[in-house]
């Protein structure tokens, strides 16, 4: 068993942990990373990345089904579901290997095992119940991520009732599917399976799909999903799942009425909880609130020398938030100048369903609730040349400004490629631009991004093409 001394030990090799480790190595810290499963974490192995590979396939399927619109005549085509899944796994594997290479390149010691805090400034690494290493470090970052939340009575069994993990690697295409929860994860699976041809029902306990998004965007998305044949029940909950041998009967309650639907499989996507257990935190001052580790703006826990970043610290559960927190945390430890806490209102969120949804900052409702006087601009894809040329006329770009100061409070988009466009508003917001700079920015023609410009103009009654 090795016993080594480091400047920093990171527990967890996801997008928070491995990025923090690389930044620490760049700053000259002797760094160790402990990972019990896959480098790259859920994001790279069981989340963001493999689902994007799947959604690419469902997009292709959708295009092939609509090839006639573009003048193609395709008499017959089909897909091999196994290969679709294999491709997704291959992508994850390739990128996980990439992370391994990056860690090696940065001379980070990687320990394969489960890391636990063992007394002050010490991490014990276990593998298959055996102690394999003991690491000492002045600074320890916990980046253990999160896992799917389960509801009592609706616990996933991995066969008929799936979490995201089983939903990503099924043996065969389910013919019909119930998705419980319409956040980003639920909706992406619903969109994938629907566009691959499954009969999909979505149940959401809130009154709208994608409940964290702007209300207008939620309503727009719902319309599009329903147009694609998705069945959506909002203000509804699954009260019971009767499991058959190869199917499930779900009892869905809404507005005092109960309906039953028979489906092949169920995907539970009702949120996530932090992996804050079994980390040896009981003997420390680290506080845990409803499964999430409590930290300050520099990712410090209440125990000196122990930090936590990413999903294990709570919402928003986003890989890029974890990475950023990791970098800030490490730079602060290293005493770098010009380090600033993460401004969560500048973190974009993307959902890669069809049509895509992307946003940054406050929703219109949240902005109003905070007492802002607003200027709101909207621009529809229908008014944009590139969108029409692409055959993607459904979507909108919405911008929200503080009427008093011209501060960009929020941007909300739905439609083709908006997950790439949102960065424009992310930069604008981070640099604290006002409507004036956005109006003065020259947007290339023809591009979908022109709608960002038009939406800003519209907020001030100056839209040209609508």
């Amino acid at each position: 068993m090795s016993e080594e001394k480091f400047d920093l030990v990171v527990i967890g090799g996801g997008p928070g942990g491995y990025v923090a480790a690389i930044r620490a190595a760049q700053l000259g810290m002797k760094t160790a990373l402990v990972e019990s499963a896959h480098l790259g974490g859920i994001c790279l192995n069981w989340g963001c990345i493999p689902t994007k590979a799947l959604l690419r396939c469902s997009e292709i399927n959708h295009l092939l089904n609509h090839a006639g619109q573009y003048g193609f005549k395709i008499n017959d085509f089909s897909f091999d579901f196994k290969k679709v899944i294999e491709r997704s796994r291959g992508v994850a594997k390739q990128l996980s290997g990439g992370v391994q290479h990056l860690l090696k390149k940065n001379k980070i010691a990687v320990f394969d095992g489960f890391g636990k805090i063992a007394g002050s400034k010490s991490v014990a690494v276990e593998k298959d119940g055996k102690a394999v290493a003991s690491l000492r470090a002045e600074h320890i970052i916990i980046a253990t991520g999160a896992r799917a939340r389960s509801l009592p009575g609706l616990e996933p069994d991995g066969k008929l009732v799936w979490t995201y993990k089983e939903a990503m690697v099924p043996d065969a295409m389910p013919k019909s599917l119930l998705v419980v929860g319409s956040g980003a994860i639920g909706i992406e699976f619903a969109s994938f399976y629907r566009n691959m041809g499954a009969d999909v029902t979505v149940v959401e306990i809130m009154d709208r799909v994608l409940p964290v998004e702007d209300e207008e965007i939620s309503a727009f998305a719902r319309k599009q999903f329903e147009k694609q044949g998705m069945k959506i029940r909002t203000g509804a909950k699954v009260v019971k799942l009767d499991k058959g041998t190869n199917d499930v009967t779900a009892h869905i309650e809404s507005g005092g009425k109960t309906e039953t639907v028979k489906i092949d499989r169920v995907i539970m996507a009702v949120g996530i909880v932090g992996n804050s257990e079994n980390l040896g935190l009981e003997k420390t001052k680290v506080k845990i609130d409803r499964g999430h580790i409590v930290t300050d703006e520099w990712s410090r826990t209440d125990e000196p020398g122990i930090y936590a970043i990413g999903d294990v610290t709570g919402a928003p559960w986003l890989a890029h938030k974890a990475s950023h927190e990791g970098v800030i945390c490490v730079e602060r430890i290293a005493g770098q100048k010009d380090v600033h806490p993460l401004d969560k209102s500048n973190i974009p969120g993307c959902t890669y369903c069809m049509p895509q949804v992307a946003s940054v900052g406050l929703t219109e409702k949240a902005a109003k609730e905070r007492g802002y006087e607003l200027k709101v601009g909207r621009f529809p894809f229908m008014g944009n040349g590139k969108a029409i040329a692409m055959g993607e006329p459904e979507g909108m770009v919405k911008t929200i400004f503080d009427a008093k100061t011209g501060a960009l409070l929020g941007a909300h988009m739905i439609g083709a490629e908006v997950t790439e466009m949102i960065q424009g508003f992310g930069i604008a917001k981070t640099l604290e631009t006002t409507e004036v700079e956005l109006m003065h920015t020259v947007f290339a023609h023809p591009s979908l991004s022109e709608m960002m410009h038009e939406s800003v103009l519209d907020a001030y009654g100056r839209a040209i093409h609508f």
Partner: protein
Amino acid sequence: MTGQTQERIFATPLARRLAAEKGVDLATLKGSGPRGRIVKADITSGAATPAHRPSSQSTPPQKPASAPASGGIDAKQLADALGMSYTEIPNDNVRRTIARRLLESKQTVPHFYLTVECRIDTLLATRKDINDKANGAYKLSVNDFVIKACANALHAYPKANVAWTDSAILQFAHADISVAVATPNGLITPIVKKAETKGLRQISEEVKDLAGRAREGKLKPEEFQGGTFSVSNLGMYGVPEFGAIINPPQSCILAVGAGEEKPYVDGGEIKIGTFMKCTLSVDHRAVDGAVGAAYLQILRQYIENPISMLL
């Protein structure tokens, strides 16, 4: 102020807009953003206060200039390197404003200096006479006479009562005299407005009131912003003469030294008189040497014959 060679202030567009709305001078702020960039939070945090700076119509609305650098060598780095012991006295907004404005003045305004010597025996006698008869109702200082003399001279010779702008020289109708006052927080220059229209007693009372409130930090912005000409007097410290830095966008500042007894020749006779040296710092862009000299000549006449100020 010139608006010519300006150092760039890094501030976000939103911070600039908020600062303009709140009347905050960005140059007085320390940015908390990346590389010291001024961000919204620096304006809204409450740390920002409206700028303590004179403004005039000639002043461009945005006045970017960074906090002054200390001439290329960082004093702290050097002191640390040499192991010198020191106390750090943090710079407040007033200190930063003084530093920035005077650095900018000295770097961008072409100064030249003219010195005259005034015999103030008559002035001192007149002052004594007036004060004796006041029965304590008021007490005129030598500086009150100097302020009055400066104002009357500017009124008589407005070519020295000017400010430079790129397109024109502004010649002011009134002599608004900025009087340098030392306060615990630093230098501030409250203004005796239209001083040419005011009597010595009124000037004296105004200066007392303004200086008192300046020391308590209770001046309103309009009481120290503006001014067309400055007077700085270090006579009470025994300084015989000095050259002052122009207070932009003004063109002239008069540095007044201590009255000193010395022999002089009058009509072939050696006499003893009290002399006071006055040095005028002049912005050559707006005021030429001859103009400055002519002004000093008039000023000297008023100081040496204070009774003529009654005319």
